[in-house]
């Protein structure tokens, strides 16, 4: 089964062949490395950019303007913050020109904690990204969703921010990407670059089928009746595990993988919250002016009188960084037990 890094690669291969992607670029994205997470190994349109994030975003905008289809990578989202003006510009160009210049471009970047990345390889970007109008924003948590959402992103005619939870990069899915070999390790032999000299290596791409996961559609990962849990990225599998664990205690949680942050699948959230009357939002970005707070506001706006308990947010602590030492990271971003506790206490509340 493909992991997320491989799923990115398969999707980009498909997109180069069938969806007109012309440029996959960024720092160390091209040969020999193929990306610091190997996401871009062996692809035919990759190239290494100068070490200049503003240049990367500007280049992507220019390519999109001239009819190319760029997929630009920011090596870690921690290094995207000197480009927010350009991201805003990419998001407002269609609007500012009154419908003349749309920018079909994808920016992908690894986000979040979980790999002991210390202060500058642990940032989340969902709060900042969702505050920028004009972008579609997705964040898969499984390889198949990665594949399907990245194809959707490469078909979009608007800017798409593709956030990859780096803690899940090497986690294998339990669903096959259509076309990938069934046998374990076979995929790796075909498409993972060898260690050492790679100058003569060429990948053997399997023949892939198109899977489009529409941007804007959430996925119910577990159905339940008592409390809705909404998450995405690194914390999503933790929520699913928490729900399983709590089932033994008699707590019946429904878990939704939001997958698309903008636009998000309000219909799905609403239906679930109306059913359960309780909701916990979980993400790991710092908790002040956090996207989960927006979702809570939406819930309050539309469902206040149907709530059986106050909606709850579990998010990252409002501190300036995620420290390297394990106890620091553990105290900074949601852990399994934090999520379980929040679900348990929310489920237990009665009006």
């Amino acid at each position, binding site marked *: 089964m493909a992991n997320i890094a491989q799923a990115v690669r398969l999707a980009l291969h498909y997109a180069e062949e069938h969806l007109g992607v012309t440029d996959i670029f960024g720092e160390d994205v091209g040969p020999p490395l193929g990306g610091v997470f190997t996401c871009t190994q062996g692809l035919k349109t990759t190239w290494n950019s100068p070490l200049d994030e503003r240049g990367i975003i500007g280049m992507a905008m220019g390519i999109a303007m001239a009819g190319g289809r760029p997929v630009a990578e920011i090596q870690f989202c921690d290094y995207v913050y000197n480009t927010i003006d350009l991201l805003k510009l990419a998001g407002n160009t269609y609007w500012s020109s*009154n419908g003349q210049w*749309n920018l079909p471009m994808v920016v992908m970047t690894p986000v979040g904690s979980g790999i002991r990345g210390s202060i500058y390889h642990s940032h989340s970007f969902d709060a900042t990204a969702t505050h920028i109008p004009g972008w579609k924003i997705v964040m898969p948590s499984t390889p198949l969703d990665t594949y399907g959402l990245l194809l959707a992103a490469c078909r979009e005619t608007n800017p798409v921010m593709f956030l990859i939870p780096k803690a899940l990069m090497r986690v294998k899915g339990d669903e096959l990407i259509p076309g990938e070999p069934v046998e374990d390790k076979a995929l790796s032999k075909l498409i993972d670059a060898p260690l050492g000299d790679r100058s003569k290596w060429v990948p053997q791409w399997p023949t892939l089928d198109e899977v489009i996961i529409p941007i804007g559609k959430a996925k119910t990962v577990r159905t339940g009746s008592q409390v809705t849990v909404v998450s995405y990225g690194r914390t999503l599998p933790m929520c699913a595990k928490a729900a399983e664990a709590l089932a033994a205690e008699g707590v019946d949680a429904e878990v939704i993988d939001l997958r698309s942050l903008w636009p998000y699948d309000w219909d799905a959230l609403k239906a679930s919250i109306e059913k359960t009357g309780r909701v916990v939002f979980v993400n790991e970005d710092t908790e002040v002016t956090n996207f989960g707070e927006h979702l809570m506001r939406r819930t309050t706006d539309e469902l206040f009188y149907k709530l059986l308990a106050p909606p709850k947010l579990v998010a990252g602590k409002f501190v300036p960084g995620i420290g390297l030492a394990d106890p620091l990271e553990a105290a900074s971003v949601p852990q399994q037990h934090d999520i379980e506790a929040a679900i348990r206490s929310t489920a237990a509340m009665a009006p």
Partner: protein
Amino acid sequence: MVRDARKMTRAAKPDESPAKPSRPEQQRFPPMISQSNELPLEAPLLLQLHDLMVKARCLEERLIAMYKSGHGYFWIGGPGEEAFNVALGLLIKKGQGPAFDYLHFHYRQSATLLAMGEDPMGAIRQMKNVAADPYSGGRNFAGHFAKKEWNLVPVSSPIEVQYAMAPGTALVQKRHGGDGITIVTGGDAGTAEGDFATCLTWSSRPGQELPVLIIVTNNRWGISTPAGQVQAVEKVSDRGVAFGIKSKTIDGNDPIGAWLELKEAFEYVRTERKPYLVEANVSRLFGHSSASGANYVTNEADCITRFEERLEQHGVLTRAQANALREKYATEFADLARIAKEEAFPDGQTIWDHVFHGEPGRDPFPR
């Protein structure tokens, strides 16, 4: 006609030296107009340059008048840059897609648009921010053009970001083949932003050099701040040298010199498919913008006055003709402004339009 102009140099001996660029003057001294005893261009082109310069000036004067009489909230534009901007516009390969030139402009280029054949009504409508403004539908400031048919990407207020985007369009053009190039322009003060360096780096990657004509119009001001106070760089064109980029400083107040220099630069970029950096010394004739009063200044060279003197001197134009031309355009634009004043503003609900391409405009939230 516009396209023809690109070939209108007098058949010159190859080593006939065009008007020499003057060294950039120190702060506060207006750049000198280059003088030569013989005009190296044919009369029709000279008259076309003059006509367009006057047309552009009259348009800007009308926009300023609109501002001053309350028909528009903010004015910014290009009086003082007409000589350079008209020459530039005449040399552009106009059209849509990578076979044609991509234009990453700043907010002082009405003259370039007029030289390309643009209807002046657009600028007037944008000034008045009416719904019919063809560039932004009443959303953006004066001078913030955008015209996809002509590869004119939206002029945006943030200084210098266009320099980060320009290599992107040029990359697609390089791959596409043909002679389409990318042109990016901005002011001198803005070169202090890192994006200027970004443009130099990304345009000159070894083996991946890009067809970008990188232009800086140097008026020696950033709003109220004199260039000499904040930047040690004497010639902005020197910034290109370390990158191996062909670079030149020219007199942007002289339409003839500008035309010849730009022609050379265009030819280099079109054929070599490599970047070229042109710094053009120009004047700023009505201050920075309406925020600084938008009044004519008397201590900077006026490219039109000087050009007219020269044309008169050489018998190409009479004062009466020049006056008549000005009169004609002034009247024409006053009439257009009267029409725009009656036009409708965009409706508030249109804010939802064009948030996302391919989707109907709508408020995502129930109210």
